[in-house]
């Protein structure tokens, strides 16, 4: 751990406002990106950003410095986003589990994914319905297992899997459309 990082952590634990501002300057853009992945509109993302940083500062003493600071902060922001969705009844609109034949869906094309810019890919993800988007974010990007997601969202593992498969289906469609557009442009 760098000396400056240690100083930053100690300062934040003491509640030093200058150190808190420094922490904000370092991580605000990244955390804003996380917030935007979970909520579709920017205003809600701003609220989450502010709320998340307040939680980080007020709970900083709980950070034991054994894990990465960024990882610890990410978790706080993800959970803040989940709480926001619960409060705003976002997840209720998610469809329940249907019987899926998971093999009927093909994974998104790797080449297409590579060609997409970060913003384009995030735009597609943010365009997913809330329930699918949440499970997709938690499973693919945060690395949670379906069991853990089921526990977090109070759903069954099967529901989590089905939401993920649906998310993949929509993502695949959008990627294919985008790929076709790109090919059409090239031709």
């Amino acid at each position: 751990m760098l000396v400056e990082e240690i100083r930053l952590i100690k300062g934040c634990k003491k509640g030093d406002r200058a150190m808190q501002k420094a922490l904000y300057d370092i991580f605000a853009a990244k955390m804003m990106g996380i917030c935007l992945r979970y909520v579709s509109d920017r205003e809600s993302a701003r609220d989450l950003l502010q709320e998340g940083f307040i939680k980080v500062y007020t709970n900083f003493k709980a950070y034991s410095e054994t894990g990465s600071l960024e990882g610890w902060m990410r978790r706080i922001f993800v959970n803040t986003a989940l709480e926001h969705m619960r409060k705003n009844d976002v997840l209720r609109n998610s469809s329940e589990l249907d019987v899926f034949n998971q093999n009927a869906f093909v994974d998104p094309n790797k080449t297409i994914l590579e060609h997409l810019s970060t913003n384009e890919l995030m735009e597609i993800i943010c365009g997913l319905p809330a329930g699918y988007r949440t499970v997709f974010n938690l499973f693919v990007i945060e690395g949670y297992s379906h069991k853990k997601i089921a526990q977090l969202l109070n759903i069954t593992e099967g529901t989590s899997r089905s939401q993920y498969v649906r998310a993949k289906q929509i993502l695949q469609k959008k990627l294919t459309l985008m790929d076709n557009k790109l090919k059409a442009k090239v031709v």
Partner: protein
Amino acid sequence: MKDESKNIIRRKANDFNVEPDVGDWQAIEQKLNKLSNKTNKKRVIMTYIVAAAIAILLVVGGLFWLNISQPKQNLPVLAQQDTKYIEKKKSEQKSDLVITKNIDENAITGLTENIDRSMDKAIMPDKAPQQYNSITNNTLKNKEKEETKPSTNVSEENIDNNKQEIQGITNNRADKLLADNNANNDLKEEKQTVQNDAFPPGHKKEEKEPNYVKVDVLEIIEPLKKSQKNDNYAVSLLFASNAAGSNVNNSHASGTSSMSYVLSQKQYLVSNLATSNYYDDVNHNFPLSFGLSVRKNINQRFAVETGVSYTYLRSVFLLGSIKKTQDLHYVGIPLLGIFTIKNFSRFSVYLSAGAMVEKNIAGRLTINSLIADTKKNKFTISQLQWSINAHVGLNYQFYKGLSFYIEPGWTYYFDNGNGVDNFHTKYPSSFNFQAGFRFSF
């Protein structure tokens, strides 16, 4: 999705940085300032609470000190009153005896002298012998009580030798003799008695027997002992909770454990971040207790108390879209030592200290989510919950045998290692407040 595709998406998501608006930091700073002010207010309130607690301790300590320095005043009020009564009667008794002695000595001496003088004068009124005999008999009776034999002997001798001359003593002379005794007001009463004795039998004033004769210390103390015996036991109904505020709110982290939703912060931080949970918000409601206890008085100061108590704990954990409500029900057995510091007419102040063991009899975890049905899981905690406590008690007897009491105090709950988060694990040391009714029999 294949790992390669996942990695691409993950990498791009991690690179997805969006600059926040300029006003976001100002908004955060304002919220932090508000929180800081709230914290300061809480500190001020806590300072007042601590100051009040210290003041109570000083008052109680002062009473305790006074109690030690004046042990006689520590008797129950009834005993105090009766003791004062006994002392008063004793002093009256002494006073009466002293007066009697004074009357006897002075009157008899005076009488003897005057009798000697009267021999020369040889005055013999008609009623004089009867009056003199009355005075002499009365005086002699008192003399016998005090066993002032020398004076009495002199008097008797003089009487025998000068019986004839005694008849010359008149009423006025008897009055003068008594007035010359320099007695106090009580002496005047005695004089009146003497005068009454001089009345004819039919008109004799009924004399009351002195009260002190009736005062029997045992008669007073025995009922007191019986009364204390009767109050040896007390049954209490109590209600208890922590002293201030409504809910305790905190955020903390947890991870997998015997109960998957709870784990201490340290455990969380060393555990795998990807598999552990972070609670966004945790509310531990203040515990509520109800109980029935029995107190046995060992002596006037010391007593032991035990009984049974029921405690209800509720905690609410907010985790993303999930709201988990944890209800815990405990049954406990306390064992306390009681020391009475001071007894007033209706109030008594006491200290109590002891321990309690509690057993979880039921636990329920209700999981509410907006995207799934509500789940209810029942469980019990096998480990016993031990605690120690100390209270200052104020008892007010509002009816015979019935009293109301309040007991502010402190309790410390030991970690029993069950890993279930609740108010006691979050705040093992806490101030609390007990109140209830006590029935003594």
